[in-house]
């Protein structure tokens, strides 16, 4: 700690701070290009020149880059000194020699850091009369637009892409004033975080290609603080809309969650809201009808149903909507759950109960060792990005997986196990951690993992709840406790944690059984897809015919929505207010960024309206009490969120005590395991540009296990709900006896992780 002086203003600094960073903390923005708060100092652009006053008489003042100048006690630095100002203007003039003067038509205009700096620093006019350097641009795939002529060579893109996100397919090529930032050959950028190039680039080299095709000047965008609906991390976002349509999403800093970045699922998944398939009209018995009339018809049929009704909410629907549905069911005497899959419901409850001091992304990035179970890239991409900082700092990362996962390529140690082996393996690790004397009782790989965790001062343990299943979640939580590690689970759905506060394990089973047994013939589905893509859809599809009335409220055209007897279209996340509780129990509110030309109701409004029409006017009030029960008041959009109270965990722990389905004894049988990718999410699946990057549907096994089938040939899989033919791929990232399957295949076959499957050559 100390104080230095910037043009006579005292600035406090911490040891190791550079002058630029310390000044920023004090609210003074020294002009800069290549410095970035998340990427640090580089010293390349030379814009942040300041004058260092001599300590002793007789010495000359020196002009130095503030980002490379370490703050020292009593140091005197001047931003206003004529020499420093001339140096900065010299840099602007040189930077602009090659930059095109296309500001009026540039995609970046209005939020261009280069434009801001040029206006702020000067010179205002150009005297360079030479030619400008030009480049050929590359097609970088459906998400990012490339315009290299605008490049000012600040190296932010490669520092983000390579150093921060550990991507390998974008680099700095060539030298002198022809340094080229691109790929060796044209093609889609491979990183799940490539979209951040749009925000780290201080000018318009990398711009949002999707936004570009639905362009608006940024000053014409309507925005409001929002929260990403595409996974349980709950990154803070700023959607921008114009003329009643959503145009883009960018990050919004929240130190408790994501400070600087978002993943590509979050940035480009929003296109579900503008998908041509998005249902915008209400339907009754297969025909479009006025929402008012459909609402009334539903109400009348609900009254007729006389209590033989159940409600299925969703982990991707907000607290308000789920609470409204639960309140309505409570008043109508029907069961409610947010989960089509009882198994997944139990996993979420286990994971949430153990997340009472869940680690933040910043803590993950600062960990000195990490143990990961499952594919974080596919289930919580921003947790993966935080882990890449652990890798970048050369700290150990252990990845336990059943199918190929991107993080395994960065791990210092990997352990490849079949899904059914996970709980026992985690329990063995836990046993060895509790009892160091037992070393030797576990094999060398396990011993190495324990040694890594034992050595670490700040270890983190991360797991994917859907992959682990209830016993795996419980085992991993125990292990984290024994290792003294911070813990976090990637949960399935933006509000998965929140739904665990509204129901208990077993509720999902009750909803399903009430339909299976015929006690219930009317089902209200809010934002889930039990007859389509939801885990557990197999059992549901079998009972579809027993339903007399299927009411669906949703903002996307799921298989369930398409076969609804009555359908009410809902507003998309960026069009409404609501609350999500993230993986760490942080309740965050979001606000509507815009209103569609024909406004659509949010979930809680629609459900409350139904309640009103069946004479249950208190649904809305009950729902409000339920929704905010554990955070006292609705969290305000744009604030940093409210951590749920300890009572929430009391509820969760009591829920989690329920027994769960034991691990299936696969024996010699092949086990199914879910293969995800970073765009894999029920909403983002409707985003056309992002979906173009989805990997082909394949079934994946480790090489050398089945001599009778060649890779590339089609194989036939037989599960409890159906049969499927898929091409076979060999990948050493698969565990022995494990069949890696895409989500659609898992659902079609009716299996969850660890379930056994028959398969063979298709002929």
């Amino acid at each position: 700690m100390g104080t230095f002086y910037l043009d006579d203003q005292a600035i406090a600094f911490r040891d190791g701070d550079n002058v630029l960073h310390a000044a920023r903390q004090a609210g003074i923005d020294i002009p800069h290009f290549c410095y970035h708060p998340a990427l640090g100092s580089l010293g390349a652009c030379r814009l942040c020149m300041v004058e260092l006053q001599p300590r002793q008489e007789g010495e000359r003042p020196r002009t130095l880059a503030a980002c490379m100048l370490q703050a020292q006690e009593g140091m005197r630095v001047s931003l206003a000194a004529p020499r420093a100002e001339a140096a900065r203007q010299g840099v602007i003039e040189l930077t602009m020699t090659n930059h095109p003067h296309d500001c009026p038509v540039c995609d970046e205009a209005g939020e261009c850091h280069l434009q801001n700096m040029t206006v702020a620093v000067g010179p205002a006019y150009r005297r360079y009369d030479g030619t400008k350097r030009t480049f050929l641009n590359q097609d970088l795939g459906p998400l990012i637009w490339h315009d290299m002529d605008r490049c000012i060579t600040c190296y932010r893109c490669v520092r983000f892409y390579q150093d921060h996100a550990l991507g390998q397919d974008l680099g700095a090529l060539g030298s002198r004033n022809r340094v080229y930032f691109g790929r060796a050959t044209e093609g889609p950028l491979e990183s799940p975080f490539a979209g951040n190039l749009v925000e780290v680039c201080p000018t318009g080299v990398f711009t949002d290609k999707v936004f570009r095709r639905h362009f608006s000047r940024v000053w014409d965008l309507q925005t409001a603080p929002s929260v990403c609906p595409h996974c349980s991390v709950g990154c803070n976002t700023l959607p921008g809309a114009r003329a009643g349509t959503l145009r883009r999403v960018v990050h919004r800093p929240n130190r408790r969650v994501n400070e600087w970045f978002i993943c590509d699922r979050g940035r480009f998944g929003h296109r579900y809201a503008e998908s041509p398939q998005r249902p915008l009209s209400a339907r009754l018995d297969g025909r479009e009808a006025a929402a008012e009339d459909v609402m009334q018809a539903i109400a009348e049929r609900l009254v007729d149903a006389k209590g033989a009704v159940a409600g299925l909410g969703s982990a991707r629907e907000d607290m308000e909507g789920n609470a409204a549905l639960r309140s309505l069911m409570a008043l109508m005497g029907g069961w409610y759950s947010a989960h089509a899959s009882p198994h997944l419901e139990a996993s979420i409850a286990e994971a949430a109960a153990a997340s009472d001091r869940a680690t933040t992304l910043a803590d993950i990035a600062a960990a000195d060792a990490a143990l990961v179970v499952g594919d974080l890239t596919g289930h919580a991409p921003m947790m993966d990005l935080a882990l890449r900082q652990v890798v970048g700092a050369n700290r150990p990362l252990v990845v336990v997986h059943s199918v190929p996962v991107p993080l395994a390529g960065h791990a210092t140690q990997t352990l490849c196990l079949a899904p059914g082996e996970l709980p026992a393996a985690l329990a063995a690790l836990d046993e060895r951690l509790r009892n160091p004397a037992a070393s030797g009782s576990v094999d060398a790989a396990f011993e190495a993992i324990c040694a890594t965790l034992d050595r670490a001062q700040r270890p983190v343990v991360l797991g994917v709840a859907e992959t682990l299943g209830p016993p795996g979640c419980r085992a991993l939580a125990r292990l984290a406790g024994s290792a003294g590690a911070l813990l976090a689970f990637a949960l399935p759905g933006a509000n998965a944690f929140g739904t665990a506060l509204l129901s208990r394990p077993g509720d999902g089973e009750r909803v399903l059984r009430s339909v299976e047994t015929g006690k219930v013939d009317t089902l209200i589905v809010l934002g889930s897809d039990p007859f389509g893509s939801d885990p557990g859809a197999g059992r549901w599809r079998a009972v579809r015919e027993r339903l007399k009335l299927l009411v669906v409220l949703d903002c996307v055209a799921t298989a369930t929505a398409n076969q609804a007897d009555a359908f009410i279209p809902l507003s998309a996340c960026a069009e409404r207010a609501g609350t999500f509780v993230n993986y760490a129990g942080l309740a965050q509110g979001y606000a509507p960024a815009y209103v569609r030309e024909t406004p659509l109701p949010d979930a809680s409004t629609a459900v409350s309206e139904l309640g009103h029409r069946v004479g249950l006017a208190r649904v809305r009030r009950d729902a409000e009490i339920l929704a905010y029960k554990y955070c006292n008041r609705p969290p305000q959009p744009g604030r940093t969120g409210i951590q749920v109270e300890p009572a929430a965990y009391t509820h969760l722990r009591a829920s989690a005590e329920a027994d769960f389905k034991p691990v299936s004894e696969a024996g010699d049988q092949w086990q199914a395991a879910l293969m995800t990718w970073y765009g894999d999410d029920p909403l983002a699946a409707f985003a056309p540009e992002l979906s173009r990057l989805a990997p082909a549907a394949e079934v994946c096994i480790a090489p050398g296990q089945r001599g009778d089938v060649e890779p590339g040939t089609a194989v036939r899989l037989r599960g409890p709900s159906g049969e499927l033919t898929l091409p076979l791929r060999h990948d050493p990232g698969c565990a022995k006896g494990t069949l890696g399957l895409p989500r659609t295949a898992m659902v079609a076959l009716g299996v969850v992780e660890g379930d056994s499957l028959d398969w063979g050559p298709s002929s």
Partner: protein
Amino acid sequence: MERVLSRNFHLAEPPRLAEYRAGGGYEGLKAALDQRPEDMIDLVDRTNLRGYGGAGFPIARKWKSRGADAPHPRYLVLNVDETEPGSFKDRQLLYRDPHQVIEAVLVTGFIEQADHAYVFVRGEYAEGARVLEQAIAEAREAGLVGRNILGSGFDLDIDVHLSAGRYICGEETALLNALEGRRPNPRSKPPMPFEKGLWGAPTLVHNIETLCHVPHIVSRGPEWFISQGVNGGYGTKLYSVCGEVNRPGFWELPMGTTARELIYDHAGGPREGHELVAFLPGGTSTSFLLPEHLDTPMQFDAVAAAGSRFGTCGIIALASGTCPLRFLIGINKFFARESCGFCTPCRDGLPYVQGILERIEGGRGKPGDLDLLLELCGKIAPNAFCAFAPGAIMPLESGLRLFRDEILEHIARGACPYRGVH
């Protein structure tokens, strides 16, 4: 004067191990292995041996800065990325006497107690790298390289790395990045390479000519070394002269030999019918000296006192009849092309300068161009990240001032006054 570094240069082929040994080769290594490293550091310190790669930093001070207690592993890097225009002395050592280079690396490695040595060779010197690799293999076979060298218990292996070829790779921190397989941009200092160099370990980077003196100093003593020089210089120096002279070449001469002797006696003076106009004393990245400076002893302090830099001491002569602007354009074109592209002043400033220079030479100069050029010099050199741009600006800025009249004449005439003069 005795030929020290070039004693085997008369041979048609580089000497093989036996031949090199027969001429007293590896005696310096034997002498070194019998001494204590700290004593040898003091010995070399007394000679004030300085780096001949351009910067002229005293080698003993480098050793002392790193200290005897630096953590292991420690690396020794020999910089043979000789890319400075006008400098072609290092290649002679590499091509003509590789065992001398190996002996120098071994002795220095022992003084530094280094764990591994890398020889970083300019891409265009691929043949020299091959010659050196052959010699290393020969020496390894004879127990001179590798484990337990000559039974001393000292281990040192040497790897030769051929550069992919860029001027900036000769900058020591860019060289380290290149060796690590990274983009060869210079690194920020501090930390200095002797603190955190190759892969973060203490690393000392040396010029090949400097290092070749070390075995001789160790075996024959500092007094002998000092006595080799003249006019305030110590030891011998591989001097070279090129440009518009009758006999461009290189010669091993006493350090401190005057520019007049080099240009006129050894290089045969300017081309027939022309006068010497100016010369760059130490490769392109130094300021011009004038005929009035011809009696300056070519050694570090005297050249600095005359207002330039000793650099690598590869003299480039400029004679009458050649357009000095074209000369500056040639130099600046090289630097604009070789800029690594890391920092703005260098990357974008040098091409800006180049455009103006070419415009003037092409007869499209404007009043005020000279002031604009000088203003750009003042903005590029002091604000750049590494020493490359200051080196590029030195000949340019001094040339702009020196040839002010000629440049103004270009602008006034709208044509090059030297056209058709040759």
